[in-house]
């Protein structure tokens, strides 16, 4: 669960925050240290855990900082811009900003952007982007104008997507918003127009973005208090064309529409956003954390002294200006599990013990979200001494697998899946399998020709899947009429809904014998009923004993007449299996599956009557087979049990009796079943009659064992 912890104030020193608040809070090269740039002349380096400043630098009086200081992670130096054009670079040892490296640029800088693992970028107010190194090589180089007149950059963010730096910035012109995505390596700049949808009046107040596989998910907090999401493709299909993007509503009424102060939005991770603003028009400002996946408010904190409408999030800390001082609220998003939510799991695990994650972490995405990876690689390199560093951390096989699924051929995927399964139990094995199946199924849906059957079979056989994990799987298999896969699912999944079981049954009954012959279903549960030797023997027995059921028994006089007409036919019917062995195997899978009577019955009514009759005939045949031997079991490895057979006969009759009773071809079957029940009743009544005798026999037996009322025995105690 996401939770906000106790807040603390970073410094008692009142920052010279202007009406717009701070210029910015940026990460430094150490996890715990942050650069805070106020709106005047000062940059302060804070150590959050100690709640104290480590260093403070100011520009000369008369100069003004125009762009928040950032850290160049490659060289561990700090960069700041004052008076729009003057770039200053210094490090921890420097005391006076006047004496540090200075470069005057030819155009006004909007912002310097720096993330771990790449060189900082400089974004100019005209929309041009330069790498810091290239810029410093020739500070006075000409900077082109990218955006049009009166277009103002509103917000910007810098990501690394699949090891490539990607810069996004949002501009505004006359209430229209545009998004620019700059692939820094390929130098492709793509412009998108952000369409606001119906509600044209709202003003977008705050932006945040995260990277989700192929897309940048741009979230915006609008003045109507709702959060919208816009997906911006990272790899543009046609970079030349001006494209439009539509936003979709993500969360409604997060903050009140007409707030006096600014509102701010920050994505915390894939599923959580932090929103700063007043929930209602009159109320005080609040910091709230929302789960966008479940649309739930996770936690909130009231900030009575008001904020500047700015919010920064780094590592595990949320920064904001609360009143006049910089406040830090640590934020934690712990692994939430179903067990935890239900209160069965003890919270607050011993920090010393390392616990293997047993549950899927819903909060942190497994296969994506590179933008948030905050790998703290301490590299001691100075700015001027550039060292070739491999920026390619080893990609885990699971991620490789996922990317394979997205585009490669069936063959290739199969090889990859096999490779991954050979690796076996990695801690996130379950998650990866789940993701893989979901990925495969998504692609299946998107591309009708794509059906990686072998792959799916392999994945099902890992025993980690269940119906609820990938409901689409059986749906697709049902569409494709892939009985083999369905059989496998029925055998492996513990939680198939009755409706799907019934749909499977429908297919199993309706599929043609020819197409069945081609399939390769598991015949484990089917015994070769056509064994001729056995057949002979059984034919003899049906006359005499079937657990007391004798079809010749003359008790049902009027229906017997009809029966006696074709005695030959009847024996044939009862001795030969009414379905081919492959269909029998499929039906057995149905018989083995779990169900709840109440939910199954309505679905059974949808099955055509002739199929019902066929199934009943098969069940009746199984019953006869069962009653052949004394143990009332069927031969074979995993045969259906007598109870399963009887239950299904009852279910089918309950659901379809009115239909079946009208069918002439089902008549004999029904008569047989009726006689069977009747004979069973008479057997039981006979048993009840002789129960008393049994008891007497038992008593006699007991008396024999009884030692009598008196004896003298020898006892030795040891």
């Amino acid at each position, binding site marked *: 669960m996401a939770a906000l912890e106790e807040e603390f104030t970073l410094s008692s020193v009142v920052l010279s925050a202007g009406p717009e608040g701070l210029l910015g809070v940026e990460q430094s090269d150490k996890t715990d240290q942050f650069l805070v740039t106020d709106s005047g002349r000062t940059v302060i380096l804070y150590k959050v855990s100690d709640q104290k400043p480590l260093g403070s630098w100011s520009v000369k009086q008369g100069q003004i900082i125009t762009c928040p200081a950032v850290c160049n992670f490659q060289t561990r130096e700090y960069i700041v811009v004052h008076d729009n054009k003057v770039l200053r670079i210094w490090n921890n040892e420097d005391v006076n900003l006047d004496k540090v490296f200075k470069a005057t640029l030819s155009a006004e800088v909007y912002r310097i952007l720096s993330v771990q693992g790449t060189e900082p970028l400089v974004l100019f107010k005209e929309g041009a982007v330069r790498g810091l190194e290239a810029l410093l090589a020739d500070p006075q180089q000409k900077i082109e104008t990218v955006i049009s007149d009166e277009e103002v950059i509103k917000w910007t963010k810098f990501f690394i997507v699949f090891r490539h730096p990607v810069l996004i910035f949002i501009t505004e012109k006359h209430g229209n918003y545009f998004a620019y995505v700059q692939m820094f390596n390929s130098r492709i700049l793509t412009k998108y127009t952000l369409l606001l949808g119906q509600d044209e009046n709202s003003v977008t107040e705050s932006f945040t973005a995260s990277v989700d596989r192929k897309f940048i998910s741009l979230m915006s907090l609008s003045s109507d208090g709702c959060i919208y999401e816009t997906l911006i493709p990272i790899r543009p299909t046609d970079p030349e064309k001006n494209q439009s993007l539509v936003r979709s509503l993500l969360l409604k009424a997060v903050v009140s529409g007409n707030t006096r102060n600014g509102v701010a939005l920050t994505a915390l991770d894939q599923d959580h956003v932090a929103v700063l603003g007043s929930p209602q028009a009159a109320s005080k400002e609040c910091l709230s954390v929302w789960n966008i996946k479940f649309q739930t408010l996770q936690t909130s904190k009231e900030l009575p002294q008001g904020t500047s409408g700015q919010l920064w999030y780094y590592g595990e800390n949320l920064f904001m200006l609360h009143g006049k001082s910089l406040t830090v609220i640590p934020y934690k998003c712990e692994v939430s599990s179903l067990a935890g939510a239900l209160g069965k799991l003890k919270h607050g695990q011993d920090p010393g013990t390392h616990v293997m994650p047993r549950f899927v972490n819903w909060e942190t995405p497994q296969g994506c979200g590179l933008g948030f990876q905050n790998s703290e690689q301490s590299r001691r390199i100075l700015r001027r001494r550039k060292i070739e560093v491999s920026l390619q951390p080893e990609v885990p096989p699971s991620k490789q697998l996922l990317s394979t699924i997205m585009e490669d051929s069936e063959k290739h995927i199969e090889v990859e899946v096999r490779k991954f399964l050979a690796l076996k139990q990695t801690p996130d094995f379950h998650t990866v399998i789940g993701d893989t199946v979901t990925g495969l199924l998504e692609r299946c849906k998107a591309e009708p020709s794509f059906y990686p059957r072998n792959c799916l079979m392999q994945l099902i056989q890992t025993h980690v899947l269940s119906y609820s994990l990938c409901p689409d799987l059986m749906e697709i298999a049902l569409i494709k009429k892939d009985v083999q896969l369905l059989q496998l699912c029925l055998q492996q999944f513990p939680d198939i809904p009755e409706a799907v079981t019934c749909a499977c049954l429908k297919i199993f009954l309706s599929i043609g014998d020819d197409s069945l012959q081609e399939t390769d279903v598991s015949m484990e549960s089917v015994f070769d009923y056509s064994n001729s030797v056995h057949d002979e023997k059984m034919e003899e027995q049906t006359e005499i004993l079937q657990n007391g059921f004798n079809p010749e028994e003359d008790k049902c006089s009027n229906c017997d007449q009809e029966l006696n007409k074709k005695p030959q036919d009847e024996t044939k019917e009862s001795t030969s299996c009414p379905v081919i062995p492959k269909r029998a195997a499929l039906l057995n899978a149905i018989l083995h599956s779990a169900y709840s009577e109440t939910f199954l019955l309505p679905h059974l009514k949808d099955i055509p009557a002739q199929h019902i009759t066929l199934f009943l005939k098969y069940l009746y045949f199984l019953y006869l087979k069962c009653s052949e031997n004394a143990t009332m079991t069927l031969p074979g490895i995993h045969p259906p049990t007598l109870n399963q057979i009887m239950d299904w006969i009852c279910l089918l009759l309950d659901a379809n009796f009115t239909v079946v009773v009208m069918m002439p071809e089902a008549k004999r079957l029904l008569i047989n079943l009726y006689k069977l029940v009747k004979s069973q009743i008479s057997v039981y*009544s006979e048993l*009840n009659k002789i129960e008393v005798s049994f008891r007497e026999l038992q008593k006699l037996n007991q008396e024999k064992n009884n030692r009598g009322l*008196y*004896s003298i*025995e*020898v006892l030795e*105690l*040891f």
Partner: protein
Amino acid sequence: MPPARGLTCNGGRRARRRAANGRQPNLPPPSPPPRALPAHFRLCARSTSGAEPESARARGAGAERGERREGERAVTGMGEFKVHRVRFFNYVPSGIRCVAYNNQSNRLAVSRTDGTVEVYNLSANYFQEKFFPGHESRATEALCWAEGQRLFSAGLNGEIMEYDLQALNIKYAVDAFGGPIWSMAASPSGSQLLVGCEDGSVKLFQITPDKIQFERNFDRQKSRILSLSWHPSGTHIAAGSIDYISVFDVKSGSAVHKMIVDRQHMGVSKRKCIVWGVAFLSDGTVISVDSAGKVQFWDSATGTLVKSHLIANADVQSIAVAEQEDSFVVGTAEGTVFHFQLVPVTSNSSEKQWVRTKPFQHHTHDVRTVAHSPTALISGGTDTHLVIRPLMEKVEVKNYDAALRKITFPHRRLISCSKKRQLLLFQFAHHLELWRLGSTVATGKNGDTLPLSKNADHLLHLKTKGPENIICSCISPCGSWIAYSTVSRFFLYRLNYEHDNISLKRVSKMPPFLRCALQILFSEDSTKLFVASNQGALHIVQLSGGSFKHLHVFQPQSGTVEAMCLLAVSSDGNWLAASGTSAGVHVYNVKQLKLHCTVPAYNFPVTAMAIAPNTNNLVIAHSDQQVFEYSIPDKQYTDWSRTVQKQGFHHLWLQRDTPITHISFHPKRPMHILLHDAYMFCIIDKSLPLPNDKTLLYNPFPPTNESDVVRRRTAHAFKISKIYKPLLFMDLLDEGTLVAVERPLDDIIAQLPPPIKKKKFGT
């Protein structure tokens, strides 16, 4: 140590081991290097020297093989016994009719169909600490606690009785004048008593400090009132009758509602529907159980049926609600007990509903009555078992208390024996039986059944006069006196044996003070009779020839009226120990006729005690399974007892669930104490080390393939046999003969009425 002795001994031992074909891994192989042998022997001698008596070791060390065996048995074995295994004690406990649980004292009152009332202390390991003998004309139909810890019962003779729990007698009986009483309920405050009568009247009684006072009648109903329940606020009552339930307003005494119960049973309309039990909850819900197998919930404000559960094909006969009203229990005539709980409809929701959660089938016959203690469901019925089933969710510590208890036999002695004449006296509710044991001349080894040269004889069947049950009985050690007592009379008989004929002569003109005895005991030489009367007094009577003489009476400590339930006399006749239900054990000097000392009081009641011959050590067993040995001459606990207390008993010993009911001693082996409970017989050898929790307390297999060393090392003081069970009595007749009286449960069940027949085949 001379090596020759060691070699001789080990040689013999080796030969025997080979013959027995058993080998222990920790011992040297059959042909070890000779050098190892003396060392091994030394080790073995040292390990046993602590416990082994000096004489036995000296004899065993240098002796031949045969003698060695003899000596060894003296060390580790307890010797062989011929056991008279008696199963002809045809005792059938009477069925349980009512149970009433008292939360204040954690006691349970149980009444049986013969009118007996027993009080169990649930805190003291479910010990049956008190009992009130039954009466033929007093069938108890209702039992309840009121006004704290006062116990009342009412029955078909139309009387309400209060029991004196101190003096163990009936304080008074008040006729309610309404015909047979079917039901009774104490008000929530405990100050009022309500009875439901045959004539349809509900009568309210006020409980005064020393009696009860009739107050008024409620509106008369047309048929008998079978069940009653107070609303927890005391303003309303619910009364179950035949075919309907009435709700009364207590203030006005008039019926507010009449709720008609459906007679339909499984679609068939029965003649009548008897409401066997009602329970009034504080939210106004009335729960009823009836003969149609239904548990129904009624709204008493509107008089409407809210919910109905059909739970049985037969009658649902009893109901009891937990004090928190979050769970209740019902018992059916099929022997099933159902637990209902108030559970939320969905998790986190405040809306709750009654759900049938657990069925228990611990009974074979009708469950006539149930009770609900905070931690357990208690049930009893025709099959005579009292079943206490702890609710696992309410039990905080999962110890042995969390186990199911099934109490069948009384925790007191019903059998006495004359050692000299080998006679057994069996006590039944209304008669005594005297049996002479058989004999045999054969011998055999462990486990053999010997051929009888003479079978056991039924000598005497002595029927009591009057409707009262026998409280206690005793036969003198010489076999010539039999004494027994009912509530109102004391009987003493003189027996004369002339060859095979027995003549019985009643000693007439018993003194008036000998009226009601709780315990009777003869001295070892049969010259004195000790009688514990219900007023707390102990009488000593001198017997000589055919007459008796009252010698002395020990009056109870001033201010106490506590009755003495257990007596023990020393074999020299000098000391008499007496124990009450709660206070400590008093020891009297019979010669000087004065109180000698009082054993320090212990928290748990005494279940059995005896005084050892020669040493005059008093051995006391308590209901928490502790055994103490107290030296009467020294007036202090013996060293052995202190050692036992210091080390503690084996955990399995403490986990036994039946109390020790008899203690005796071996005349030739002063270190042995013989005791038994219903499921085991044990000889404690005080000379051997006590077992710790790691050692095996009970080994059912004779140690045939174990060598001496292992046997000596594992030998401990407790020698247990579990062959005889349920064991009602066991005593030593002479040095090598024991008598064990068993009462197999199957024999009891065979004498009960047949249970409701359930179909075995088909449904």
